[in-house]
Structure formats: C-alpha cells, structure tokens
C-alpha cells in the first residue's frame, strides 16, 4: 500500500485515486512477465491471416495462390466502411486462400502464406528514430492512413479504428481516453509498450486527439504500474505534450470502455450507447502505438505485443509477434507448454478464450497466451445459490445476475429485457465472486443471445 500512497502524495497531491463507482472485483494482478523486456519473434513455416479478424464485414482478398508478397503488402481489402484492411505480416508465397481452424476449431477463411525470409515493402520506415513532428498532418490524412494500415482496437473488441475516429453526425468527442489500465491479471503487453515505446504511443495518442479534434486527452493507468506512470509523466513533462496521465485505483474491470469513461471523465455512457454519447472516445495504448507507426512510419498493423505467461511457464515472455503466427509455434518458441497445463487461455484469465485448437493463428488483437495449471483448470461443482448477493455487489453495470440466470433458465426471455440484460459487458465479476460457483455468466450469455433474436 505504501508505494501507492507515496505515488498519490508525491505526484498527485492529496487527490483521491479515480475509479468507477459500481461493483468490480479485485483479482490478484499476477503480472509475472512485467520485468521481461519485449523480444521479437520472426515466424517460420506458414502464417494464416483470417479475413474476418475485426468487427464488421470480412476483408476481400486481393492476392491469389502462388503470388509472392513482401512484409507489409496489402493482401485483403476492407469490404465497406466498417471493415479493415489486412496486410501480409511476413514475406513469402501465398499458398492458398482457404478455411483455417480458429481457436475454437471453427474453420474460417484465411490467407495462408509460406514464410521466405523477411523482406519489407518499400516506404516503410523501420528505423528506431522517433518521428515526433506532427504539425503538418491534418485530421483527414490521419484517418486515411489509419484506415489504410488496417488498424483495429487492440483492447480486445477489434473495432476498426477509423470508424471510431469518425463519430456519427451531431456527436462530438470532447475527451480522448487512452486505455492503459490493463486490469486483466497476468497481461503485461501494454505495460511493456508504455516502458519501451512510451513516447511513440504518446505521439500516437496526440495523432488520435487531432483526428478527433478533441480538446482534452488522458491516459488512464492503474497504480499497480507505477513505473509506467512515472515514465510517461516524465516524457510528457520533458517534451511538453498536451496530454495527462490519470492514475487509477486498481480494480477490475477498469479497462472496460464504459467503466474507464466513468473513472477518467466522470461521465456515464447511457445504456446501449457508445462512449461518444458521453462525449468520449476510448482507444487502447497499443492502438495508439499502431497509429503512430502507421502515420509516422507508414507501417501497417502486422504485429502486436503478446504476453506468454502462467505460473508454471518455463519463461515469462513479452514478444512482438507477427499476426497469423500459430499459437503452438509461439508457445514452442517461448520455451514450450509446461507439463502441468490443464487449460490454455488466449487472452487474460477473466475474459480470455480457452484454446481448443493450439495451432490456431493469432489475430491482430491477441494479447496473451496463458497457461492454467491442471488443478485450477476445471471449475468446481455448482452448489445451491445461497442468495448472498455477491454477484449483485460485484456487477459493474449494476445488474442482478442471480435474477438474470433464473429468468434465462425459466425461458422468460422477454423479462430479461426489462432487467437490462443487454447491458452486461461479460466481464465475469459475477462468476468470479460467486461462492456457490453458479455459472452465472454462461447463462447470461445465453440470455443475451436469446433477446438479440
């Protein structure tokens, strides 16, 4: 506690640390890979680029079988406004455009490329120099470059960034919030980005701010990452950037858009609305870095930082991994899958997906490979609900999970609507805190599907 108290006193006066106001949980942060510097993994063999790895219409392939591509070459074009370009993450030969099994084993269309060397497209600036001159770039150029580079929200939703940068008619974003909360346990990729590419990410944030024409910009970071807070503040102070770091109290799900808007800006997003309805746009810190690379360096989104971690992992690794690399290759490269693994999660332990097919390729938003030991892999048996109301206390949206699951079980789907089931952000706080291990979230997901129809 003393570290946090110190931060508060020395840097922020006596201001209370901000956070969201309803519910939440405190899973232990377990940032095991926090001290591992980012390594770069160059893939071998084949990579597979899914055509639909973003929200919206799948991209349309613009290369054919046998065609040679260089790293950074456009291989699939956005299909419409809400869609995103896809670029080759390696250089080599296109083997096929065919269905490839994803994490869950579903076969989805993808471009499969045989890796041959690592030759980059012309015009991509790969020098490490920081290009911090953004005075000559206007909003339209930024949005066009972001769109060309195929950037999507890297926080997990994979929503095309250029769409987020073009708010609907009559709505204006007053506040840009850069999401660096990284509230999921175990994940450290955003943390490494802040420490290693802090200035680039800040420039990316300023570009986003210009694209939105937002008067104010904040970076929200939880206080369990004091080095990142100090580091970014130092850069901002030295360079005089007009962006503020907002330290946040550690609490899950702080990194959820709606919760972050409340924590940082003090405004609440209306039900079924977008953050822009509360005058805010939220972008992940990883997205900000990608925007910097796209606008200043002409580099499309072809790699991202992935944490490979777990209590029995042979090595705690943060790695820049090319999109489309099979998870099994990454795991083998990072020291192999520990023998006591009972479950492999792609993403954080609260919201990540369990991996059924370890050979599935990564997508732009893949954040982590997490090994869960055998003894923690299976859920405990469900017992009677004792109506302790912990789920109600934990729900950050102020819903009543115990009621929603009962209504779903009884098939009373029309009542689910009146109890605002659609507001559920699937953060998992209810199931996390339930002493009877009632599969609350599983049923709520079913209920949400039912009311969509």
């Amino acid at each position, binding site marked *: 506690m003393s570290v946090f108290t110190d931060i508060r006193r020395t840097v922020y006066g006596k201001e209370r640390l901000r956070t969201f106001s309803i519910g939440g949980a405190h899973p232990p942060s377990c940032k095991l890979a926090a001290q591992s510097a980012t390594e770069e993994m160059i893939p071998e063999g084949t990579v597979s680029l899914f055509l639909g790895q973003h929200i919206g219409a799948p991209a349309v392939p613009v290369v054919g079988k046998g065609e040679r591509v260089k790293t950074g070459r456009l291989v699939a074009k956005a299909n419409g406004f809400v869609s995103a370009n896809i670029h080759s993450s390696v250089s080599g030969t296109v083997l096929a455009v065919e269905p490839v099994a994803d994490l869950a084993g579903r076969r989805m269309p993808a471009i499969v490329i045989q890796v041959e060397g690592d030759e980059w497209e012309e015009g991509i600036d790969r020098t490490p120099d920081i290009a911090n001159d953004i005075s000559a770039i206007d909003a339209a150029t930024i949005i066009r470059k972001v769109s060309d580079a195929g950037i999507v929200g890297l926080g997990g939703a994979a929503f095309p960034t250029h769409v987020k940068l073009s708010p609907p008619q009559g709505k204006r974003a007053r506040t840009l919030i850069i999401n660096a909360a990284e509230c999921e346990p175990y994940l450290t990729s955003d943390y490494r980005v802040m420490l290693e590419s802090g200035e680039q990410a800040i420039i990316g944030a300023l570009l986003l701010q210009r694209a939105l024409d937002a008067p104010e910009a904040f970076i929200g970071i939880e206080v369990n990452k004091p080095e990142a807070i100090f580091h970014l503040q130092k850069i901002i102070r030295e360079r005089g950037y007009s962006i503020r770091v907002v330290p946040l109290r550690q609490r899950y799900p702080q990194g959820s858009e709606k919760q972050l808007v409340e924590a940082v800006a003090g405004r609440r997003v*209306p039900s079924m609305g977008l953050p822009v309805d509360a005058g805010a746009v939220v972008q992940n810190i990883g997205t900000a870095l990608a925007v910097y690379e796209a606008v200043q360096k002409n580099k499309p989104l072809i790699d991202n930082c992935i944490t490979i971690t777990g209590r029995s992992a042979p090595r705690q690794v943060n790695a820049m991994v090319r999109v489309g690399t099979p998870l099994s290759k990454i795991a083998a490269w990072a020291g192999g899958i520990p023998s006591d693994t009972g479950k492999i999660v792609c993403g954080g332990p609260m919201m990540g997906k369990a991996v059924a*097919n370890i050979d599935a390729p990564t997508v732009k938003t893949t954040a982590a490979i997490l090994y869960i030991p055998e003894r923690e892999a299976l859920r405990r048996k469900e017992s009677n609900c004792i109506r302790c109301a912990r789920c109600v206390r934990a729900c950050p949206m102020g819903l009543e999970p115990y009621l929603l699951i009962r209504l779903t079980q009884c098939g009373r789907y029309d009542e689910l609507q009146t109890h605002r089931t659609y507001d559920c952000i699937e953060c998992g706080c209810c199931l996390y805190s339930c002493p009877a291990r009632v599969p609350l979230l599983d049923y709520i997901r079913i209920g949400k599907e039912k009311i969509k129809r």
Partner: protein
Amino acid sequence: MDEKMKIDEGMPGRFTDKDWVVSPAPHVHSGATTQGLMRDVLIALAPALAVAVYFFGWQMLLTAAVSVASCVALEFAIQKYLMRCRPSVNDLSATVTGLLLALNLPAGAPWWLVTTGSIVAIGITKMSFGGLGKNPFNPALVGRVFLLISFPVQMTHWVVPQGTATTDAVTGATPLSIIKENLAQGLSIDGIVERFDLSYWELLFGRIGGSAGEVSAVALLAGFGWLLFRRVIRPHIPLAVLGSMALLGGVFWLVDPQRFIDPLFHLLSGGALLGAIFMATDYVTSPMNPWGMLIFGIGIGVLTILIRLFGAYPEGISFAILIMNATVPLLNKYTKPKRYGKEVRHG
C-alpha cells in the same frame, strides 16, 4: 458447462497427446465458498457462545452440541434418504442453524426441547422447501418461535447468569419482561430501574436473564465486527434495524420517559443485537439489493419496537424478522441496485 473437450480428430493441426479443458471465461475464481462464509459466521458466533458458557456453565456447551448435532444429522438423513441426493452438510449451513438455535433458547433448555426445535428448523422450515437457499423463512427463528408458542413455560424459564462456578441456577425474568410486567402493575420506568437494578453495564457484559446468546452485547458486537471485516455481510440490515429501533424507541421515550424505556436500553436488551446481526442478515431470507436491505431492516426495527411496547410479548424481534422475511420477494422485485448509465428507450 464444463467438459474436457477432445479436439476433433479430423481437424488439421491438432495436439493428439493431450486434452485441454475448454470452458467459458472467467478462468479464475476468487476462492469464496459457501463453507468459507458459514465458517466465518461460526467464528463470529464464537464470542457469544463463549460468554454463554462462561455465565451458564458447561451445560450450555452441551445444549449447543445437541442442537448442532441434531440439525446436521437431520439434514444429512433427509438429503440421503428422502431427497436421495448427495448430502451437503459439509457446507456448514446446518451447523450455523444449530448454533443459532441453541443461542436463541434459554440456557439449560431440556434436550427434547432442543431437538424439537431442530426438527422444526431443519425438517420443516429448511428441507421441505428444497434445502439451502430455497427456504423463505429463517430456520432457527421458526424453530424458536414454534417452541415459544408451543412450550411457553419452558421457553421463559430464564436462568440468571451465575458463572461456571455455581451449579444451582437462579431463575428470573429478562429485563424486557421485568419492565413489561411492572409497567402493567403501575410502576414507572425510574422505579423499575431502581428496584431491579437494571444497568447498562450488565446489559453490555451479560449478567442478565435471557436467551443464551443474547446476554452479552459486547460479544455480539465483536461478532459483527468480524462479519464486516471478512465482508461476509454488508452493514445495511443491522444498521437499519438498530437505527430504526433507536429512532422509534427514542420518539416514544421523549413523549413519556416514565412509560417508555430509553432507546439505548432497547438496543442492548433482549434479542435486538443477536437478531439484527445474525438472524436478519441470513443471506437466504434477506433482500439482495441495498435499498431492499434498508427497507427490510427498518421494517424489522419498527415492528420490534411496536411489539415490545404494545404487544403481548415482551420481546418481538423474532416475530418482526419472520414477518419481514415474507416481504423479501417483493422487496427484491421492487428495489433495484444502482445501474450504470441512463436507460434509453428503444422503440
């Protein structure tokens, strides 16, 4: 929902030497268990039990043991032979019910009285509705009220605390019944307090007559502290019960201090603390939303004071809690937790 999913044999690129668990998120858990919560309630009741043993002797421990054993055995037997499901006495909920029942009876209650209470509590109130989490009324309280109405003589045979040293117990009345009876005979509050030497000190530390668990306010407050510290309960219900009792009791006291005892006396005497802290906060039979909890608590407080001052019984918190138990489904329906964000009507 959970199953060890074998990866489709026909799928290209599979791991054949190992099966992974595939289940929906979240993949971690806080570690909270029903058993853990119940264990915390038992720990919170320990000081009250210790004080009861200190004042009423080792016989008290025997009463508690009989009560707990009969509750657990009955739940086990019903689950195994009637419901034919796996007995879940491991969750300690029957143990809590048993201990609460023992603390709600007069010290030195005969064994048949205790076991009758257990049968009503576990057999009728809890298991006939389907077991843990399904019963609308608090089992221990129904047990107690059943005994109070059916066996009024044994149930008001109060032993005045003497300590473990003395064996021959003295019987006497509870402070609340002393006041009720003497007011009926025309004495004033001041007169009663002076004549029967009723001091707050004794109420706080327990040299009063009453149910085994309600004699010491300090021990019960220590338990309250533990429950709050471990975040087993939220403070809403106990504070609403005690606050509304103090408020309403205070109004009557200000109207006529010679006819109505002061609010502090109300809070420290009888089952107020035991009821507010341990009986009204029972998860199963109390509301789930903060506003519901407050209304529930206020209802209990108001009804308790009204029964104490104007009812036939000197103490009314058991009745008040059971009456409010019946309103819980309505309170759950008409109170809602604070939602995130304004609701937007979509046509």
